[in-house]
């Protein structure tokens, strides 16, 4: 602070002769340039999203022209030799693996967030919070490495049990049958669940902690149990932001590339069983991009990227708007 005060003072000295404009006039070009530079960078940030969509759209144009929109979406063919490409198995793979991740991660995140905000003794809150945040700091390549070389072999030992027990249940049983390979849709879903857990938990924890104490304390004073407060006071009060956090996690799961590529098995054929290998949009792009020899092949892969960005954009816009709506509501409540 000392040096900045001195700097301001130095600049102010000539103002003694010309009281009204001196300081301002002396540095007008610099001030003007600084402002314009800031504006230019803000514009750059503001148009980034549009530029990303436009550039990816431009590069996928050959594939759009050849296969159309509806034809590409519903076709299951993926034949680089005959140059016939369709997105259906990959869209299904992306949605299925992300759905498994959300089904597993949302309840666990809710549990961790309630634990941190309501149940945990004061001294343990900070360490548990920091540990969960660390899950978000681990790069996805490490999740992939661990998923493929450590988790998959362990999971392969559990799969016969899964197909013997859950696989016998009529209806959903068909989802849990197949050879125990350890890699496949279900493994990808589980690894994704671990990866999105910290993002959902962080939002839930923040909004749970921000629930006004008088609401919670009123309920406790009426004799409510911790669970009743969590279920009937905190959750209804924060549900918009909780939904936002869930969408944020979903956006992460849909676009996650490396970890999924390691463990999903990379088969371009659709399979009824979750234990069988599959592929998601990011995994097929990552796998085949450097092998794509023809312009149409490459363009079809980028077209898959265009579909993915449209899906994730919708999910993320919902997430940002939902999370923001609570912030605004909370500010209004103060």
């Amino acid at each position, binding site marked *: 602070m000392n040096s900045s005060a001195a700097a301001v003072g130095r600049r102010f000295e000539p103002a003694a002769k010309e009281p009204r404009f001196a*300081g301002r006039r002396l540095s007008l070009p610099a001030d003007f340039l600084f402002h314009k530079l800031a504006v230019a960078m803000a514009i750059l*940030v503001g148009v980034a999203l549009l530029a990303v969509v436009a550039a990816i759209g431009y590069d996928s144009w050959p594939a759009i022209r050849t296969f159309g929109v509806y034809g590409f979406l519903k076709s299951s063919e993926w034949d680089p030799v005959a140059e016939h490409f369709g997105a259906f198995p990959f869209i299904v793979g992306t949605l299925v693996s992300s759905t498994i991740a959300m089904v597993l991660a949302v309840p666990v995140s809710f549990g961790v967030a309630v634990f941190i905000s309501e149940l945990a003794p004061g001294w343990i809150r900070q360490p548990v919070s920091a540990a969960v945040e660390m899950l978000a700091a681990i790069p996805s390549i490490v999740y992939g490495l661990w998923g493929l070389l450590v988790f998959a072999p362990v999971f392969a030992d559990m799969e016969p049990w899964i197909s013997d027990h859950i696989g016998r249940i009529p209806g959903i049983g068909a989802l849990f049958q197949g050879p125990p390979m350890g890699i496949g849709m279900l493994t990808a879903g589980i690894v994704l669940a671990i990866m999105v857990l910290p993002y959902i938990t962080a939002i839930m924890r923040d909004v749970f902690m921000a629930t006004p104490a008088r609401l919670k304390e009123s309920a406790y004073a009426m004799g409510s149990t911790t669970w009743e407060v969590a279920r009937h006071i905190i959750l209804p009060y924060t549900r918009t932001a909780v939904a936002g956090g869930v969408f944020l996690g979903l956006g992460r799961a849909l676009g996650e590339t490396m970890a999924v590529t390691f463990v999903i098995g990379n088969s371009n054929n659709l399979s009824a069983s979750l234990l069988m290998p599959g592929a998601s949009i990011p995994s097929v792009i990552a796998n085949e991009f450097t092998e794509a020899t023809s312009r149409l092949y490459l363009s079809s892969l980028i077209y898959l990227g265009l579909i993915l960005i449209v899906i994730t954009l919708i999910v993320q816009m919902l997430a940002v708007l939902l999370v923001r709506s609570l912030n605004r509501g909370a500010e209004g409540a103060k």
Partner: protein
Amino acid sequence: MISLRAKRRATNIAASALMYAATFVGLFFLAWILWTTIKLGISAMHWDLFLKDTPAPGDGGYGLRNAFVGSLILMGIALVIGVPVGIMAGTWLAEYGGRSRSADLVRFINDIMLSAPSIEIGLFTYAIIVDPSGHFSAIAGSVALSILMIPIIVRTTDEMLKLVGGEMREAAIALGAPMWTVITKVTWKAARAGMLTGILISLARISGETAPMLFTALNNQYYSTNLGRPIANLPVVIFQFAMSPYQNWQQMAWAGAFIAIVFILLISVSSRLILQRRVNKV
């Protein structure tokens, strides 16, 4: 009444047990991942990792030097591009844009870019740099990384500058200081710890990015510092080595993962320390 009370108590105990279990599950996987990475990473540690380049397929020996150097070059250039853009855009949001509609639009777009899948940034960089130039290059990789770090820097800069009290700005303006002097000499100075933390967090995030590298910097089996050519980098080397059948390659993948995690941990610990020291001082 008693039965209702017993039922509520039982529900509460069951629900609490489930929440303890959920927390245990989360921590269990964190411990499992960290433990295997540390155990396998340390057992694969070898001086040759830092002194030799990646061995050819089937050859024995260890070496990741070209990958470390490549990653550092990629991150260094990404910082040079990303920090000025991010700081200036964040400064515009906090100091000039304020709560105007255009500033809110930029914030909204920035929030979406913040969580955009990194693979899309890779495809974008491929479309604007690699495809027109005709070959994969280190510079394209750096551009992709800088696009990934800019939203983080913009957001933390915006938030940290908004925390600076209005009195300081008003005092400087009252002394006749022009706006840019107020910003660079007063508000940036007051918010510098938070802004530095944002830059460090963004660096931690990009250090493990793999997907965008596949479409931009690609990989290089040899030592290279040529920015116009493909360059080796740690994440892609880990990817390639983990998928390989060679024993020494898989071990090196773990060593690389261990070093990446240590790097990220060091960054996050130091950013916490920076913030804490600031809090203590104030």
